[in-house]
């Protein structure tokens, strides 16, 4: 038998796709910014904090890195309300993304901090800078330059992983795809087109991150 592909069956739904795409972009952008902030704090605490805090951060990082994102999402969305913490789909999606990227970026940034020669820290301290000033002006700047490529790929991975938030009905691009194929019964066409949109998105995101890197993160 032959099956005729009908991509035009998607046209009436272009607005749903556009809204879904917008949600995915905002979700990725916000969780990137907040997630890296969490990662910066986490890595600083891990490298320079007291032992109890460093240990706590380590547990957080290992727990997240060794469990699937979808389980983290379900735990936050379905599990936490049992403790009286009720979250909307959208809030749960944002929190899960931040928690996830926060853990990965903690690990990545920490590796960057570890790679800074100890002499640079001593030089900063000898110039009467406090540990916090040394961290801010000397260590983090260099650490970011070192780990920027690794962090960039992690951001793309997290963006692609965000497709899973559709499973708690957060209205992202994949959610739109599911909705459309339930209406027009053109699953292959819908998923194929949406897969291509994701592909474009990841190519654009990589390009954008490279631009930002060249402009702001380079070391002389």
């Amino acid at each position, binding site marked *: 038998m032959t099956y005729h592909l009908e991509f035009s069956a998607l046209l009436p739904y272009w607005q749903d796709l556009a809204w879904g795409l917008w949600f995915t972009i905002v979700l990725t952008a916000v969780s990137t910014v907040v997630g890296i902030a969490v990662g910066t704090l986490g890595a600083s605490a891990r490298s320079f904090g007291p032992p109890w805090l460093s240990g706590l951060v380590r547990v957080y990082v290992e727990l997240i890195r*060794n469990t699937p*994102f979808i*389980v983290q999402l*379900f735990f936050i969305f379905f*599990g936490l309300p049992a403790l009286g913490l009720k979250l909307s789909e959208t809030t749960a999606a944002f929190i899960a993304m931040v928690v996830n990227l926060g853990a990965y970026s903690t690990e990545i940034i920490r590796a960057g901090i570890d790679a800074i020669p100890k002499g640079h820290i001593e030089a900063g301290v000898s110039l009467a800078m406090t540990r916090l000033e040394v961290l801010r002006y000397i260590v983090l700047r260099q650490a970011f330059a070192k780990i920027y490529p690794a962090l960039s790929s992690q951001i793309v991975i997290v963006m692609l992983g965000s497709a899973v938030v559709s*499973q708690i009905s957060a209205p992202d691009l994949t959610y739109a795809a599911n909705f459309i194929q339930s209406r027009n019964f053109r699953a*292959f066409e819908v998923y194929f087109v949406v897969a291509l949109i994701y592909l474009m998105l990841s190519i654009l995101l990589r390009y954008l991150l490279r631009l930002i890197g060249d402009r702001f993160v380079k070391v002389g």
Partner: protein
Amino acid sequence: MSDFSFWVILKNLIWATQWTIALSLIAFIGGGIVGLILLFLRTSQVKWLEVPTKLYIEFFQGTPLLMQLFLFFFGVALFGIEVSPWTAAGLALTLWTSAFLTEIWRGCVEAIPKGQWEASASVAMNYIEQMRYVILPQAMRIAIAPTVGFSVQVIKGTALASIIGFVELTKAGTMLNNATFRPFLVYALVALIYFCLCFPLSWFAKRLEGKLNVAR
């Protein structure tokens, strides 16, 4: 809630874990084989072999694994071929894994000094022989740590098979939650089991990496 319910939940989750492990093994071994073939194509220096390989990798690394699962599960069925969740999940995860392993291994092959290629070429070895006898044996040493590390991603990736109805650990969790209404306990246990599967591998990968750095 009674203790009984806790043990029933745990027992069912552990039972379902075998399917997570089985799917992971299929994806990892299948992905390894496909990845090795792709590695040869990708590093062959033959343009018409390299370009399609590149596109393949770009597609599987640049789209969500979830989309790939949907495409296999819903898409192929429309062409008159009945696809079970098993087949769809096994296929999608295998191809997804192969794309990542190819890239990881390519990095390892490229880390081998150019002199090794030149030396082996100068004793009249062809490309396959160079790879087989000179390059891969060296690349394998540095490939072990990241490969073990990626196996963790494969195990976590299998959780998405739950979405197309494959009953493994995550799906079992969802079903048990629907039956018992104890989401906190159920998903905490699910997470814990994944952690028990993944953490030893992560730890092992990190140790290997450390060892290698010392050896160098």
